[in-house]
Protein backbone atom coordinates (compact mmCIF):
# COMPACT_ATOMS: atom_id res chain seq x y z
CA UNK A 1 0.00 0.00 0.00
CA UNK A 2 1.70 3.15 -1.18
CA UNK A 3 -0.78 5.65 0.17
CA UNK A 4 -0.89 6.75 3.82
CA UNK A 5 -3.87 8.73 5.07
CA UNK A 6 -4.15 10.72 8.27
CA UNK A 7 -7.03 10.17 10.67
CA UNK A 8 -8.56 13.45 9.49
CA UNK A 9 -8.37 12.37 5.86
CA UNK A 10 -9.90 9.00 6.72
CA UNK A 11 -12.68 10.73 8.64
CA UNK A 12 -13.38 13.07 5.73
CA UNK A 13 -13.63 10.16 3.31
CA UNK A 14 -16.01 8.33 5.63
CA UNK A 15 -18.20 11.43 5.96
CA UNK A 16 -18.15 12.30 2.25
CA UNK A 17 -21.72 11.92 1.04
CA UNK A 18 -22.23 8.81 -1.08
CA UNK A 19 -25.51 8.39 -2.87
CA UNK A 20 -26.99 4.90 -2.71
CA UNK A 21 -27.95 4.10 -6.31
CA UNK A 22 -31.69 3.73 -6.88
CA UNK A 23 -31.16 0.33 -8.40
CA UNK A 24 -28.73 -0.74 -5.69
CA UNK A 25 -30.16 -4.25 -5.32
CA UNK A 26 -29.88 -4.78 -9.07
CA UNK A 27 -26.19 -3.97 -8.95
CA UNK A 28 -25.64 -6.72 -6.40
CA UNK A 29 -24.52 -9.58 -8.60
CA UNK A 30 -23.07 -12.34 -6.52
CA UNK A 31 -20.28 -14.10 -8.34
CA UNK A 32 -19.15 -17.58 -7.44
CA UNK A 33 -15.40 -17.75 -6.87
CA UNK A 34 -13.16 -20.51 -5.60
CA UNK A 35 -14.42 -21.07 -2.06
CA UNK A 36 -16.39 -17.87 -1.71
CA UNK A 37 -19.05 -15.58 -3.19
CA UNK A 38 -18.45 -11.93 -3.90
CA UNK A 39 -19.71 -8.69 -5.37
CA UNK A 40 -18.21 -5.26 -5.82
CA UNK A 41 -20.00 -1.98 -6.54
CA UNK A 42 -18.26 1.31 -7.34
CA UNK A 43 -19.77 4.49 -5.90
CA UNK A 44 -18.85 8.12 -6.56
CA UNK A 45 -18.71 10.50 -3.60
CA UNK A 46 -20.10 14.04 -3.59
CA UNK A 47 -16.52 15.37 -3.70
CA UNK A 48 -15.61 13.09 -6.61
CA UNK A 49 -13.76 10.51 -4.51
CA UNK A 50 -14.26 7.01 -5.80
CA UNK A 51 -15.32 4.25 -3.43
CA UNK A 52 -15.96 0.55 -3.71
CA UNK A 53 -18.32 -1.63 -1.70
CA UNK A 54 -16.79 -5.08 -1.52
CA UNK A 55 -18.54 -8.19 -0.24
CA UNK A 56 -17.02 -11.61 0.42
CA UNK A 57 -18.60 -14.68 2.01
CA UNK A 58 -17.22 -18.18 2.43
CA UNK A 59 -19.21 -20.95 0.75
CA UNK A 60 -18.35 -23.22 3.67
CA UNK A 61 -19.29 -20.96 6.57
CA UNK A 62 -21.93 -18.20 6.14
CA UNK A 63 -20.64 -16.43 9.24
CA UNK A 64 -17.29 -15.96 7.51
CA UNK A 65 -17.99 -12.73 5.60
CA UNK A 66 -16.67 -9.22 5.05
CA UNK A 67 -18.47 -6.07 3.98
CA UNK A 68 -15.84 -3.51 3.05
CA UNK A 69 -15.89 0.16 2.15
CA UNK A 70 -12.79 0.85 0.12
CA UNK A 71 -11.41 4.12 -1.21
CA UNK A 72 -10.04 3.70 -4.73
CA UNK A 73 -6.63 5.32 -4.72
CA UNK A 74 -6.53 7.68 -7.71
CA UNK A 75 -4.61 6.44 -10.75
CA UNK A 76 -4.00 2.97 -9.33
CA UNK A 77 -5.79 -0.36 -9.10
CA UNK A 78 -5.46 -0.32 -5.30
CA UNK A 79 -8.16 0.02 -2.69
CA UNK A 80 -7.56 1.57 0.72
CA UNK A 81 -9.91 -0.17 3.17
CA UNK A 82 -11.69 2.46 5.25
CA UNK A 83 -14.05 0.12 7.08
CA UNK A 84 -14.57 -3.63 7.16
CA UNK A 85 -17.52 -5.35 8.82
CA UNK A 86 -16.46 -8.90 9.56
CA UNK A 87 -18.40 -11.95 10.57
CA UNK A 88 -17.62 -14.35 13.37
CA UNK A 89 -15.14 -16.80 11.94
CA UNK A 90 -11.80 -15.98 13.53
CA UNK A 91 -10.22 -14.17 16.42
CA UNK A 92 -8.93 -10.66 15.90
CA UNK A 93 -5.84 -9.20 17.56
CA UNK A 94 -5.19 -5.47 17.80
CA UNK A 95 -1.42 -5.63 17.63
CA UNK A 96 -0.75 -2.17 19.04
CA UNK A 97 -3.18 -2.40 21.96
CA UNK A 98 -2.39 -6.12 22.50
CA UNK A 99 -6.04 -7.06 22.82
CA UNK A 100 -7.71 -10.08 21.34
CA UNK A 101 -11.35 -11.10 20.90
CA UNK A 102 -13.58 -13.55 19.06
CA UNK A 103 -16.82 -12.29 17.60
CA UNK A 104 -18.37 -10.05 14.96
CA UNK A 105 -16.06 -7.08 14.59
CA UNK A 106 -15.59 -3.85 12.66
CA UNK A 107 -12.20 -2.87 11.28
CA UNK A 108 -11.46 0.79 10.81
CA UNK A 109 -8.52 2.46 9.09
CA UNK A 110 -6.24 4.40 11.42
CA UNK A 111 -3.15 6.51 11.00
CA UNK A 112 -1.32 4.77 13.84
CA UNK A 113 -1.58 1.30 12.31
CA UNK A 114 -0.25 2.59 8.99
CA UNK A 115 2.68 4.24 10.75
CA UNK A 116 3.40 0.99 12.61
CA UNK A 117 3.45 -0.78 9.21
CA UNK A 118 0.40 -2.94 9.84
CA UNK A 119 -2.46 -2.99 7.37
CA UNK A 120 -4.39 0.29 7.33
CA UNK A 121 -7.44 -1.38 8.88
CA UNK A 122 -5.52 -3.43 11.44
CA UNK A 123 -7.56 -2.00 14.30
CA UNK A 124 -10.99 -3.52 15.01
CA UNK A 125 -13.70 -3.39 17.65
CA UNK A 126 -16.08 -6.16 18.59
CA UNK A 127 -19.74 -5.44 17.89
CA UNK A 128 -23.20 -6.83 18.53
CA UNK A 129 -24.90 -4.50 16.00
CA UNK A 130 -25.30 -7.29 13.44
CA UNK A 131 -25.30 -11.06 13.39
CA UNK A 132 -25.27 -11.83 9.65
CA UNK A 133 -24.11 -10.26 6.41
CA UNK A 134 -27.24 -8.27 5.52
CA UNK A 135 -27.08 -6.52 8.87
CA UNK A 136 -23.40 -5.81 8.34
CA UNK A 137 -24.15 -4.10 5.02
CA UNK A 138 -26.88 -2.02 6.64
CA UNK A 139 -24.49 -0.94 9.40
CA UNK A 140 -21.86 0.02 6.86
CA UNK A 141 -24.32 2.13 4.85
CA UNK A 142 -25.49 3.87 8.03
CA UNK A 143 -21.99 4.52 9.36
CA UNK A 144 -20.19 5.68 6.26
CA UNK A 145 -21.98 8.68 4.78
CA UNK A 146 -24.44 6.93 2.50
CA UNK A 147 -27.50 8.99 1.53
CA UNK A 148 -30.75 8.01 -0.12
CA UNK A 149 -31.36 4.96 2.01
CA UNK A 150 -34.87 3.79 1.33
CA UNK A 151 -37.21 3.19 4.25
CA UNK A 152 -38.01 -0.07 2.53
CA UNK A 153 -35.15 -2.30 3.61
CA UNK A 154 -36.01 -5.01 1.13
CA UNK A 155 -33.12 -3.88 -1.05
CA UNK A 156 -30.76 -4.81 1.75
CA UNK A 157 -31.89 -8.38 2.01
CA UNK A 158 -33.08 -9.34 -1.43
CA UNK A 159 -29.80 -10.93 -2.48
Amino acid at each position, binding site marked *: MGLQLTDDEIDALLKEVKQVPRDFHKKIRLKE*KRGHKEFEINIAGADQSRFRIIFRQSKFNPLDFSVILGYIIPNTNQVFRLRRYNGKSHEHTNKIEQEKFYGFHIHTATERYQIADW*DEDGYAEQTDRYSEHHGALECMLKDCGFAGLSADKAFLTGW
Partner: protein
Amino acid sequence: MTIEAIKEKFRVTVCSQINLRQEGIDRYRVFTPFVFDDGDNLAIILKFVDDTWILTDEGHTLMHLTYSIEARELERGTRQKVITSVLSRFGLEDNHGELTIRIVGDQFGDALWNFVQALINISDLTYLSRTRVYSTFIEDLHALIEETVPEGRRGFDWHDPEHDPDGKYIVDCRINGMQRPVYIFALPNDDRVRDATISILQFERWGQSFASVGIFENQEEVNRKALARFSDVCDRQFSNLPANRDRIAQIIRGVIGGASPGDSSPL
Protein backbone atom coordinates in the same frame (compact mmCIF):
# COMPACT_ATOMS: atom_id res chain seq x y z
CA MET B 1 17.50 -17.66 34.28
CA THR B 2 18.50 -21.22 33.46
CA ILE B 3 18.05 -22.67 30.02
CA GLU B 4 15.50 -25.05 31.51
CA ALA B 5 13.50 -22.12 32.86
CA ILE B 6 13.68 -20.37 29.48
CA LYS B 7 12.51 -23.55 27.80
CA GLU B 8 9.61 -23.74 30.19
CA LYS B 9 8.73 -20.11 29.48
CA PHE B 10 8.64 -20.86 25.74
CA ARG B 11 6.53 -23.93 26.32
CA VAL B 12 4.01 -22.19 28.56
CA THR B 13 3.72 -19.12 26.34
CA VAL B 14 3.28 -21.05 23.11
CA CYS B 15 1.01 -23.75 24.52
CA SER B 16 -1.22 -21.36 26.40
CA GLN B 17 -2.10 -19.61 23.17
CA ILE B 18 -3.44 -22.76 21.54
CA ASN B 19 -7.02 -23.45 22.46
CA LEU B 20 -10.11 -25.28 21.25
CA ARG B 21 -13.75 -24.28 21.43
CA GLN B 22 -16.59 -26.56 20.45
CA GLU B 23 -18.90 -25.18 17.73
CA GLY B 24 -21.24 -28.06 16.88
CA ILE B 25 -20.95 -31.81 16.77
CA ASP B 26 -17.42 -32.99 16.11
CA ARG B 27 -16.50 -29.43 15.15
CA TYR B 28 -14.05 -27.28 17.11
CA ARG B 29 -12.56 -23.86 16.43
CA VAL B 30 -8.80 -23.85 16.92
CA PHE B 31 -7.37 -20.65 18.38
CA THR B 32 -3.73 -19.89 17.67
CA PRO B 33 -1.63 -16.74 18.07
CA PHE B 34 -0.93 -16.50 14.33
CA VAL B 35 -2.33 -13.49 12.50
CA PHE B 36 -2.57 -11.93 9.06
CA ASP B 37 -1.19 -8.41 8.61
CA ASP B 38 -4.60 -6.96 9.37
CA GLY B 39 -4.67 -8.54 12.83
CA ASP B 40 -7.20 -11.22 11.92
CA ASN B 41 -6.08 -14.57 13.28
CA LEU B 42 -5.93 -17.57 10.99
CA ALA B 43 -9.28 -19.34 10.69
CA ILE B 44 -8.84 -22.98 11.65
CA ILE B 45 -11.50 -25.59 12.34
CA LEU B 46 -10.94 -29.15 13.61
CA LYS B 47 -13.63 -31.48 12.23
CA PHE B 48 -14.33 -35.18 12.28
CA VAL B 49 -15.34 -36.13 8.73
CA ASP B 50 -15.60 -39.60 7.18
CA ASP B 51 -13.93 -41.26 10.15
CA THR B 52 -11.02 -38.86 10.01
CA TRP B 53 -10.04 -35.72 11.86
CA ILE B 54 -9.14 -32.86 9.56
CA LEU B 55 -8.13 -29.24 9.95
CA THR B 56 -9.88 -26.84 7.56
CA ASP B 57 -9.84 -23.09 6.94
CA GLU B 58 -13.37 -23.23 5.44
CA GLY B 59 -12.22 -21.13 2.51
CA HIS B 60 -11.07 -18.23 4.66
CA THR B 61 -7.41 -17.98 3.60
CA LEU B 62 -7.91 -17.59 -0.14
CA MET B 63 -10.92 -15.35 0.42
CA HIS B 64 -8.83 -13.17 2.72
CA LEU B 65 -6.23 -12.81 -0.03
CA THR B 66 -8.89 -11.44 -2.38
CA TYR B 67 -9.16 -8.31 -0.23
CA SER B 68 -6.00 -7.17 -1.99
CA ILE B 69 -5.57 -9.56 -4.95
CA GLU B 70 -8.20 -10.34 -7.57
CA ALA B 71 -9.45 -13.93 -7.25
CA ARG B 72 -8.50 -14.77 -10.83
CA GLU B 73 -4.91 -13.67 -10.15
CA LEU B 74 -4.65 -16.54 -7.66
CA GLU B 75 -5.38 -19.07 -10.35
CA ARG B 76 -2.56 -18.30 -12.74
CA GLY B 77 1.09 -17.37 -12.96
CA THR B 78 3.43 -17.04 -10.02
CA ARG B 79 0.73 -16.91 -7.38
CA GLN B 80 -0.81 -20.16 -8.51
CA LYS B 81 2.61 -21.81 -8.54
CA VAL B 82 3.34 -20.59 -5.01
CA ILE B 83 0.00 -21.89 -3.73
CA THR B 84 0.46 -25.28 -5.42
CA SER B 85 3.98 -25.58 -4.07
CA VAL B 86 2.97 -24.68 -0.51
CA LEU B 87 0.07 -27.14 -0.51
CA SER B 88 2.36 -29.87 -1.75
CA ARG B 89 5.18 -29.17 0.71
CA PHE B 90 2.95 -29.12 3.77
CA GLY B 91 0.53 -31.86 2.71
CA LEU B 92 -2.63 -29.79 2.33
CA GLU B 93 -5.54 -30.33 -0.06
CA ASP B 94 -7.46 -27.67 -1.93
CA ASN B 95 -11.16 -28.56 -1.96
CA HIS B 96 -12.51 -25.87 -4.31
CA GLY B 97 -10.97 -23.09 -2.23
CA GLU B 98 -11.24 -24.78 1.14
CA LEU B 99 -7.78 -25.74 2.39
CA THR B 100 -7.61 -28.87 4.54
CA ILE B 101 -5.10 -31.23 6.07
CA ARG B 102 -5.85 -34.79 7.11
CA ILE B 103 -4.59 -35.84 10.53
CA VAL B 104 -2.74 -39.10 10.41
CA GLY B 105 -3.00 -41.23 13.54
CA ASP B 106 -2.61 -39.05 16.60
CA GLN B 107 -0.32 -36.50 14.96
CA PHE B 108 -2.59 -33.56 15.75
CA GLY B 109 0.26 -31.26 16.72
CA ASP B 110 2.29 -31.97 13.59
CA ALA B 111 -0.76 -31.40 11.40
CA LEU B 112 -1.51 -28.10 13.13
CA TRP B 113 2.03 -26.77 12.64
CA ASN B 114 2.06 -27.82 9.00
CA PHE B 115 -1.35 -26.25 8.48
CA VAL B 116 -0.34 -22.98 10.15
CA GLN B 117 2.91 -22.76 8.22
CA ALA B 118 1.11 -23.37 4.94
CA LEU B 119 -1.56 -20.73 5.63
CA ILE B 120 1.07 -18.16 6.61
CA ASN B 121 3.13 -18.94 3.49
CA ILE B 122 0.04 -18.47 1.34
CA SER B 123 -0.96 -15.26 3.09
CA ASP B 124 2.48 -13.85 2.24
CA LEU B 125 1.27 -13.68 -1.36
CA THR B 126 -0.10 -10.27 -0.50
CA TYR B 127 3.48 -9.02 -0.78
CA LEU B 128 3.33 -9.94 -4.46
CA SER B 129 0.37 -7.66 -5.04
CA ARG B 130 1.35 -5.06 -7.53
CA THR B 131 0.24 -1.48 -7.57
CA ARG B 132 -0.43 -0.76 -11.19
CA VAL B 133 -0.86 2.63 -12.67
CA TYR B 134 -4.50 2.59 -13.50
CA SER B 135 -5.48 3.18 -17.07
CA THR B 136 -8.46 5.41 -17.71
CA PHE B 137 -9.27 3.51 -20.90
CA ILE B 138 -12.40 1.77 -19.58
CA GLU B 139 -13.71 4.93 -17.96
CA ASP B 140 -13.02 6.98 -21.08
CA LEU B 141 -14.87 4.46 -23.23
CA HIS B 142 -17.82 4.41 -20.82
CA ALA B 143 -17.91 8.21 -20.89
CA LEU B 144 -17.91 8.24 -24.69
CA ILE B 145 -20.79 5.76 -24.83
CA GLU B 146 -22.75 7.68 -22.20
CA GLU B 147 -22.32 10.87 -24.25
CA THR B 148 -23.39 9.15 -27.45
CA VAL B 149 -26.09 6.64 -26.56
CA PRO B 150 -29.33 7.52 -24.70
CA GLU B 151 -29.55 5.90 -21.26
CA GLY B 152 -32.44 3.63 -22.18
CA ARG B 153 -30.56 2.13 -25.10
CA ARG B 154 -27.34 1.10 -23.43
CA GLY B 155 -26.48 -1.51 -20.86
CA PHE B 156 -23.02 -1.85 -19.38
CA ASP B 157 -21.65 -5.23 -18.29
CA TRP B 158 -24.54 -6.97 -20.00
CA HIS B 159 -24.98 -10.72 -20.06
CA ASP B 160 -27.68 -12.93 -21.53
CA PRO B 161 -30.13 -13.46 -18.65
CA GLU B 162 -31.66 -16.52 -20.28
CA HIS B 163 -28.61 -18.53 -21.32
CA ASP B 164 -26.10 -17.07 -18.91
CA PRO B 165 -27.74 -16.10 -15.61
CA ASP B 166 -24.37 -16.21 -13.79
CA GLY B 167 -22.78 -13.70 -16.15
CA LYS B 168 -19.90 -15.77 -17.48
CA TYR B 169 -20.01 -14.10 -20.89
CA ILE B 170 -20.01 -10.36 -20.41
CA VAL B 171 -20.48 -7.64 -22.99
CA ASP B 172 -18.93 -4.36 -21.86
CA CYS B 173 -21.77 -2.42 -23.43
CA ARG B 174 -24.85 -3.60 -25.29
CA ILE B 175 -26.62 -1.04 -27.42
CA ASN B 176 -30.22 -2.01 -28.03
CA GLY B 177 -33.29 -0.78 -29.84
CA MET B 178 -32.23 -1.95 -33.28
CA GLN B 179 -32.99 -5.12 -35.18
CA ARG B 180 -29.48 -6.32 -34.34
CA PRO B 181 -28.09 -5.03 -31.07
CA VAL B 182 -24.47 -3.91 -31.00
CA TYR B 183 -22.09 -5.58 -28.55
CA ILE B 184 -19.10 -3.41 -27.68
CA PHE B 185 -16.04 -5.06 -26.14
CA ALA B 186 -13.41 -2.97 -24.34
CA LEU B 187 -10.01 -4.60 -24.89
CA PRO B 188 -7.25 -3.38 -22.58
CA ASN B 189 -5.17 -6.59 -22.58
CA ASP B 190 -4.69 -10.11 -23.98
CA ASP B 191 -7.02 -11.74 -21.45
CA ARG B 192 -9.88 -9.48 -22.36
CA VAL B 193 -9.30 -10.11 -26.06
CA ARG B 194 -9.45 -13.87 -25.45
CA ASP B 195 -12.55 -13.50 -23.26
CA ALA B 196 -14.27 -11.40 -25.93
CA THR B 197 -13.46 -13.99 -28.61
CA ILE B 198 -14.97 -16.76 -26.49
CA SER B 199 -18.04 -14.64 -25.69
CA ILE B 200 -18.73 -13.81 -29.33
CA LEU B 201 -18.45 -17.48 -30.29
CA GLN B 202 -20.78 -18.42 -27.44
CA PHE B 203 -23.36 -15.82 -28.46
CA GLU B 204 -23.23 -17.23 -31.98
CA ARG B 205 -23.80 -20.75 -30.63
CA TRP B 206 -26.89 -19.48 -28.83
CA GLY B 207 -28.16 -18.19 -32.18
CA GLN B 208 -28.06 -14.53 -31.28
CA SER B 209 -28.11 -11.91 -34.00
CA PHE B 210 -25.80 -9.01 -33.15
CA ALA B 211 -23.02 -6.83 -34.46
CA SER B 212 -19.75 -6.90 -32.53
CA VAL B 213 -17.33 -4.02 -32.05
CA GLY B 214 -13.92 -4.36 -30.39
CA ILE B 215 -12.14 -1.28 -29.12
CA PHE B 216 -8.53 -1.84 -28.09
CA GLU B 217 -6.63 0.20 -25.58
CA ASN B 218 -3.56 -0.40 -27.72
CA GLN B 219 -3.90 -3.05 -30.41
CA GLU B 220 -0.16 -3.07 -31.08
CA GLU B 221 0.49 -4.59 -27.65
CA VAL B 222 -1.93 -7.49 -28.02
CA ASN B 223 -0.60 -11.00 -28.48
CA ARG B 224 -0.64 -11.80 -32.21
CA LYS B 225 -2.43 -15.13 -31.94
CA ALA B 226 -5.09 -13.71 -29.63
CA LEU B 227 -5.58 -10.80 -32.01
CA ALA B 228 -5.83 -13.09 -35.04
CA ARG B 229 -8.51 -15.23 -33.40
CA PHE B 230 -10.46 -12.17 -32.31
CA SER B 231 -10.23 -10.66 -35.81
CA ASP B 232 -11.82 -13.80 -37.22
CA VAL B 233 -15.00 -13.36 -35.19
CA CYS B 234 -15.41 -9.62 -34.61
CA ASP B 235 -17.30 -7.44 -37.08
CA ARG B 236 -15.49 -4.16 -36.48
CA GLN B 237 -12.36 -3.15 -34.59
CA PHE B 238 -10.66 0.05 -33.53
CA SER B 239 -6.97 -0.03 -32.71
CA ASN B 240 -7.21 2.52 -29.89
CA LEU B 241 -9.64 4.97 -28.36
CA PRO B 242 -8.02 8.43 -28.46
CA ALA B 243 -7.40 8.45 -32.22
CA ASN B 244 -10.83 7.00 -33.02
CA ARG B 245 -13.16 8.80 -30.64
CA ASP B 246 -14.92 10.82 -33.32
CA ARG B 247 -15.19 7.89 -35.70
CA ILE B 248 -16.57 5.59 -33.01
CA ALA B 249 -19.11 8.21 -31.89
CA GLN B 250 -20.17 8.81 -35.49
CA ILE B 251 -20.67 5.13 -36.15
CA ILE B 252 -22.63 4.57 -32.96
CA ARG B 253 -24.88 7.54 -33.70
CA GLY B 254 -25.44 6.17 -37.18
CA VAL B 255 -26.44 2.78 -35.85
CA ILE B 256 -28.82 4.03 -33.16
CA GLY B 257 -30.26 6.51 -35.65
CA GLY B 258 -31.58 3.69 -37.75
CA ALA B 259 -28.78 2.53 -39.97
CA SER B 260 -28.88 -1.21 -40.07
CA PRO B 261 -25.85 -3.42 -40.27
CA GLY B 262 -26.90 -4.31 -43.78
CA ASP B 263 -26.79 -0.70 -44.94
CA SER B 264 -23.63 1.04 -45.86
CA SER B 265 -23.17 1.54 -42.15
CA PRO B 266 -19.73 0.59 -40.88
CA LEU B 267 -21.14 -2.34 -38.97
